[in-house]
């Protein structure tokens, strides 16, 4: 909403600077987004009258204009086609600051000779004055513009651009804003009384109104004027509409808009003679009914939409836009003026169905009060009689099925303090509420007041609303700064499910960053295509939840795994030349549960790809591979105090034979492995990629949260290294589990795997370090030799393993 300072001053004295006023309004809840000053630079521009026009001696297109400035006359060269004798125009003296219409820079006007004739200044266009981009001709001022007055005093203004919150439709009006200013500054609000003569026959003899849907139209008021003369509005009115960003059309339409801006009540004028049956009917649209709206568009209607109709057809979409057929035209001589109240939700539904908004619908959409329509209707009737002539019908039609009596709200000074922390005495509360238009009655006890809410403040419904009114007028800056003194709620146990879950996530994040992984956060919404690309067969295992109104195809489905986000991010970063990349995300996936809310499950996913270390003279030159990924999983789970094993996995995102299931306490909690080449191809990944995925909820069930102390061994250990030659089909895990089965074995470490020279075809060699230790005594060589002999025999017997020579 744009409001002009000069217009506001019609209703309230304003002594503050525009900046201070803006600050005050903003603090009180009416945010001023911008202040635009027009005329601030018009120091040497005054209003003059063109009293003579003569041809230029040396140029056909130019004229010599003599302008009366009140204090004297000047002659100037003018090329504007629209300059006329008797016109009031802005005249810039030498030294005025104007905008050069070609370079758009501000320049000082200098004396000039144009085609041999000296020019003592110039008549200005709107563009030169910085009012608009129009430079086709000079700015013609209204005939009442006072000669000799500085243009700034006449045309200059300050426009406030207000961000009105949805609860305050009253501030979508100049009087509403003036009322706020009055309350905030303590100045009185001035509203002029409205009266006009009613010289025509009674209005009932012209028209009747029938509200078929009283739930959707709580009130319909109308006045009627005959013998009206359609013409352009006077300059002052056009100027005010312009200042609020509305385009002047003709005196009738302009008056309805002006009064809407003034009071916040939308009005509509019908050409009375085009209303068939002399009747207004407020009804729902029928199925298949149409209307051509004022903007010339044919619009299909439905029964959710409320109409204004005559006896035969729709003449307007109630509260949204008038119909073209009943529009006021130059030929109109009798108008019926509507001021009504329509149901807020109905207007909102209608706008959304028609994809249409108007200055009227924006106001109805916020919910206006049924008490509002009458006064603005009278104001508009009065203005029309003044500006367009004619005779008003006697009386006003006022059909008011929705009249309700608002209940007063009780308020105490104690309540104000209880919510705001600010001590305000009851007299101050009374004074403040009165300046906002609330009527207050003191109760018997003196501490409680009964407050009647003025009709323009339907947003105020309970005592908390009144507390806000009191405190925002006093000023939020006066609220004391205190600290919460109430008792703390009982603290949650570290063992509560939510605490354990967030604790686990925090631990994992800290470990993974320690392992060199960069954390990423990717969108919860992904494209269908990406979800499909996660499967080499392009199949969706879990049908994802779909967004009904996605912004883009890229963000249409809720992710069912973190995989797509990780792989896309990896791909993006590989393209920018990042060599070795380790990424992880901990986040929610969304698993549909029919019509219910989806299951939201925390997952961990990580990817590794490229060189193990960045390029360096000392670097390990290898590429990240399966065993890097597996090492990460082992370290993570071991640090959490869990024993982890790996089974051959078959998740379809992994390359067959190069993927494993992560097993903790006999249950699969995740996967690790090389991503299937089809998938890496689909995501345009340039290197082999390893992926880790862990279901954090499953993992959480495996974490007991308790660790048990093991005594530090008191006796020395014995270390033995063996090299086994074994069939290449045999898994390392089989070998290790046989070794570990022997008593005294406390640690087993594979330190070499070899195939090639000296090893027969089809065989491989494991070099294994075994550490023996007893908790009870110092081991002798004999004991260790004996155990190891049995071990080798067993390995030979079960796996055909022999010692390497």
């Amino acid at each position, binding site marked *: 909403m744009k409001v002009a300072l000069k217009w506001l001053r019609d209703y309230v004295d304003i002594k503050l600077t525009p900046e201070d006023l803006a600050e005050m309004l903003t603090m009180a809840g009416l945010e001023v987004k911008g202040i635009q000053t027009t005329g601030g630079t018009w120091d040497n521009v005054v209003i003059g009258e063109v009293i003579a026009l003569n041809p230029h001696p040396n140029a056909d297109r130019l004229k010599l204009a003599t302008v009366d400035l009140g204090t004297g006359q000047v002659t100037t060269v003018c090329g504007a086609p629209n300059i006329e004798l008797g016109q009031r125009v802005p005249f810039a003296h030498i030294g005025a600051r104007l905008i050069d219409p070609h370079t758009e820079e501000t320049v000082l006007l200098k004396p000039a000779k144009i085609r041999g004739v000296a020019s003592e200044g110039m008549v200005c266009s709107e563009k030169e004055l910085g009012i608009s981009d129009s430079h086709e001709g000079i700015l013609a001022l209204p005939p009442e513009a006072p000669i000799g007055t500085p243009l700034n005093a006449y045309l200059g203004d300050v426009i406030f651009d207000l961000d009105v919150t949805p609860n305050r439709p009253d501030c979508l009006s100049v009087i509403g804003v003036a009322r706020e200013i009055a309350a905030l500054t303590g100045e009185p609000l001035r509203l002029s009384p409205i009266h006009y003569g009613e010289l025509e026959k009674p209005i009932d003899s012209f028209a009747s109104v029938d509200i078929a849907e009283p739930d959707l139209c709580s009130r319909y008021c109308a006045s009627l004027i005959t013998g009206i003369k359609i013409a352009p509005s006077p300059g002052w009115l056009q100027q005010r509409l312009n200042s609020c960003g509305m385009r002047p059309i003709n005196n009738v339409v302009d008056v309805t808009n002006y009064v809407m801006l003034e009071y916040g009540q939308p009005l509509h004028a019908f050409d009375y003679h085009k209303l068939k049956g002399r009747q207004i009917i407020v009804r729902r649209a029928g199925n298949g009914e149409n209307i051509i709206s004022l903007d010339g568009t044919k619009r299909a209607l439905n029964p959710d939409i409320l109409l204004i109709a005559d006896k035969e057809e729709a003449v307007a979409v109630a509260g949204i836009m008038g119909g073209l057929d009943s529009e006021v035209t130059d030929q109109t001589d009798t108008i019926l003026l509507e001021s009504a109240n329509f149901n807020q939700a109905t207007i909102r539904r209608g706008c959304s169905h028609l994809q249409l908004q108007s200055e009227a619908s924006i106001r109805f959409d916020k919910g206006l009060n049924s008490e509002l329509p009458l006064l603005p209707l009278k104001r508009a009737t009065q203005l029309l009689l003044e500006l367009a002539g004619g005779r008003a019908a006697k009386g006003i039609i006022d059909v008011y099925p929705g009249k309700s009596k608002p209940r007063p709200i009780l308020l105490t000074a104690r309540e104000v303090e209880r919510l705001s922390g600010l001590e305000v005495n009851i007299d101050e509360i009374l004074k403040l509420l009165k300046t906002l238009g609330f009527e207050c009655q003191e109760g018997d006890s003196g501490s409680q007041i009964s407050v009647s809410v003025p009709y323009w403040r339907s947003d105020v419904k309970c005592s908390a609303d009144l507390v806000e009114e009191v405190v*925002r007028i006093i000023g939020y800056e006066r609220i004391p700064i205190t600290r919460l003194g109430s008792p703390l709620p009982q603290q949650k146990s570290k063992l509560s499910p939510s605490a354990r879950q967030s604790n686990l996530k925090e631990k994992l994040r800290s470990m993974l960053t320690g*392992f060199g992984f960069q954390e*990423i956060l990717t969108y919860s919404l992904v494209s269908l295509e990406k979800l499909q690309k996660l499967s080499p067969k392009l199949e969706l295992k879990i049908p994802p939840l779909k967004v009904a109104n996605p912004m883009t195809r890229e963000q249409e489905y809720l992710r069912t795994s973190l995989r797509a986000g990780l792989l896309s991010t990896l791909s993006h970063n590989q393209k920018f030349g990042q060599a070795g990349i380790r990424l992880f995300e901990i986040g929610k996936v969304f698993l549909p549960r029919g019509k219910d809310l989806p299951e939201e499950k925390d997952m961990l996913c990580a990817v590794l790809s490229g060189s193990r270390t960045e390029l360096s003279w000392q670097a390990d030159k290898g590429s990240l591979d399966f065993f890097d990924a597996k090492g990460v999983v082992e370290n993570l789970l071991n640090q959490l105090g869990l024993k982890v094993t790996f089974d051959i996995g078959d998740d379809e995102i992994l390359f067959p034979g190069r993927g494993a299931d992560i097993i903790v306490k006999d249950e699969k909690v995740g996967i690790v492995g090389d991503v299937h080449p089809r998938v890496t191809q689909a995501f345009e990944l340039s290197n082999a990629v390893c992926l880790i995925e862990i279901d954090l909820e499953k993992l959480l069930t495996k974490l007991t949260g308790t660790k048990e102390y093991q005594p530090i061994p008191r006796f020395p250990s014995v270390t033995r290294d063996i090299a086994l030659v074994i069939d290449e089909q045999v898994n390392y895990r089989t070998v290790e589990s046989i070794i570990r089965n022997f008593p005294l074995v406390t640690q087993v470490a594979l330190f070499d795997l070899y195939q090639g020279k000296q090893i027969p075809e089809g065989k491989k060699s494991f070099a294994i370090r075994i550490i023996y230790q007893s908790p009870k005594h110092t081991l002798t060589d004999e004991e260790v030799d004996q155990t190891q002999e049995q071990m080798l025999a067993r390995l030979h017997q079960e796996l055909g393993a022999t010692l390497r020579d």
Partner: protein
Amino acid sequence: MLEQLKDLHAQALEELNKVDNPRELELWRVRHLGKKSSLTRMLRSLATLPLEKRRKVGAQANEIKKALESSLEERRKLLEEALLTSPLESQRLDVTLPGRPLPVGRLHPTTQILSEICDVFKNMGFQVIEGPDVEWDYYNFEALNIPQHHPARDMFATLWIDAGMGEKARLLRTHTSPMQIRLMERERPPIRAIVPGRTYRYEATDATHESMFYQVEGLAVDKGITMGDLKGTLFDFCRCLFGEERKVRFRCDYFPFVEPGVEVAIGCSACDGAGCRLCGYSGWLEILGAGMVHPDVLTRVDIDPGLYSGFAFGLGVERIPMLRYGIDDIRLFYSNDLRFLRQF
């Protein structure tokens, strides 16, 4: 003999002073104190001397031997010291060579700021809880005083979940405020909690708008909680995050589920309040919306608004690192370019 001993001593000392490495020192020791040294030989030959002379020379020789031994020790210490303070050329490193690289992992800037925010509130006794991203219309809107067709729905452009006929409306939460309701449904005052989480909007993205962003919701409900407490809590928070000097503004604003409503802004970091493009020439940057929990909301969750009061706030998370680091495009956060992420 005595003269000879004196010369021996003098010569040995002179040589010792020239010794500058351990190897030469050893050679010196062998030469002057070893079995074949003149001194040892002289001591051995003492037996042939007459008793009185033997005693005299012997005492002198032993004295010189001790003196040489202690000079040797001194010299050894000196050399060792010298060796440690100025090592040999062969042991010198080119210390300008780069170190062995380690992979470096970092937390996402949003995670970092979230934990910073949560820490501040945890210290004020707030518990951290989480809630679902996909919500019912009821929790996201209706229970928060935003029924269907309420004009405030314009403030929350919503992404809806595809639904069949007659199914209850599900949506991606447009704010973390639904957790106010869920929390008050299951707990009784005193309540003091914050809820970090993802929120979503149906919005075309640009440098200042994202379709997904994080919020932190706060809620405190008990007897006697006032706007003063809200102001104190949020001012403390702003001071912790933005420093003592930063100006903070507490003004009236409207959110349907609080009354009175509040907006908190901090002085613009770019222009220091003078007005610039970043702050829309206002000098202020809005960082959160807040207010006293609306009595209708309390009534809905069966908490008596005449007895209890509370405050709630909702804080935009990305805004904070954007201001702190001068990040001018919110889309950088979730496009996860490592060239961006590795800066934090």
